[in-house]
């Protein structure tokens, strides 16, 4: 069984753990350094990117994720996770990990009352996907080697670069496990 490290510093960690387990993986909550090197997949959950980013650096987990991603360990990064996995961020003083060659705009749709659910088409999926966007970011620029796998309202909301998947929405908040299965089937 694939052992997936779910970064558990802040945010909707338990929802991702449940989703990984429901998809057939073994989930382990990562709160300190030393665990990521024992995992064959990583989930970076949603939450507040400023808060999580600071703790990733303080705990030393940031360096371990970078190392793992460089070794082609699959990563699923959602919402705040996508922000932190990016190379560049439009505003704020968060230092992203630079895993995926993209620029990300934070909170691109406005305040919480503008958060939404929508059906989107995802490259490689045979039926539409119901995506939950909560104060969601968008991808502003994709570098070479980055494949755009979903758009909404003319904006890029999901990308893939080799074994790294970045989503502006929250697959862990619905019963649809296709993205978690994708993580478990990679690499």
């Amino acid at each position, binding site marked *: 069984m694939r052992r997936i490290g779910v970064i558990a510093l802040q945010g909707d960690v338990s929802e991702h753990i449940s989703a990984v387990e429901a998809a057939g993986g073994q989930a382990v909550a990562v709160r300190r350094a030393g665990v990521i090197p024992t995992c064959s997949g990583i989930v970076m959950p949603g939450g507040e990117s400023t808060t999580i980013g600071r*703790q990733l650096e303080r705990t030393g987990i940031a360096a371990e994720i970078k190392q793992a991603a460089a070794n082609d360990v699959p990563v699923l990064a959602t919402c705040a996770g996508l922000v932190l996995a990016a190379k560049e961020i439009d505003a704020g003083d968060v230092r992203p990990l630079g895993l995926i060659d993209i620029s990300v705009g934070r909170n691109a749709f406005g305040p919480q009352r503008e958060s939404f659910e929508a059906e989107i088409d995802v490259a490689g999926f045979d039926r539409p996907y119901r995506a939950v966007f909560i104060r969601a970011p968008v991808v502003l620029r994709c570098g070479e080697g980055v494949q755009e796998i979903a758009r909404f309202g003319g904006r890029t909301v999901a990308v893939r670069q080799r074994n790294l998947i970045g989503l502006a929405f929250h697959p862990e908040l619905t019963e649809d496990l296709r993205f978690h299965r994708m993580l478990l089937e990679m690499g």
Partner: protein
Amino acid sequence: MELENLRFGTELLKRGFAKMQKGGVIMDVTTPEQAMIAEEAGAVAVMALHAVPADIRRMGGVARMADPKVIEEIIDAVTIPVMAKVRIGHFVEAQILEAIGVDMIDESEVLTPADEFHIDKTKFKVPFVCGARNLGEALRRIKEGAAMIRTKGEAGTGDVSQAVRHMKMIMGDIRKLKGMNSEELTKFAREIEADPELVAECARLQRLPVVNFAAGGIATPADAALMMQLGADGVFVGSGIFKSENPEAMAAAIVEAVHHYDEPEVLARVSRGLGRPMKGIDVTTLQEGEALQARGW
């Protein structure tokens, strides 16, 4: 874009927003400068107020929603979510906050209640957090549409004892549901004046169906970690930060304490040399009618 597929303000979106706050600290602020200090310290959100609860308590009079101008200045000053408080039952204050673009509304006993009934929160796109002292109260608020619950504690005192009591009451009531059959659950629901379906859901989940934070009297990193060890999903800190001697250090230390709530070595390190915490009030010395937790039902 298929617009008919687009949905705003669903329960999933409201509860989902609250889930993104888990494991975090939400700090009361009264100015954009304080909001920036909170964000820099690692707060997941700020609560915009005209005065922190300790000052509201001291000033007396009718406490109302903060000036929209101040709230807007705070929204402009930070990238993290901004919450603000309305009086219990004051749905027009809530409409105003939704119009401003506040990310979550706290229907709060810290302000002077406008009604004996609480707001019908299902009518709003913006999510609400509400205070509770026990399971019945929590489930009544959830039935009205609250997307997040927090203990009431006793705001503005810096005395954590009431938050502890309320968290234990909620957790204890949920534990009692374990092993009850449907008849017993229905009876229990009637006793605590709660919706039977929500009681059955708590029995099955062994927790509230929404995020449950601690609030009301948290003043130190140790207080915050105590609430986390008692099962809180995160903490609100009101007067505890900006009524302390060194708000920057206290704010950062409480954030660290919530992330490492079960690591005493880390708690010891972050608790060192923070200066004086807020002076506070022992809740047993409060006069009758001074307890904010008795507001609402």
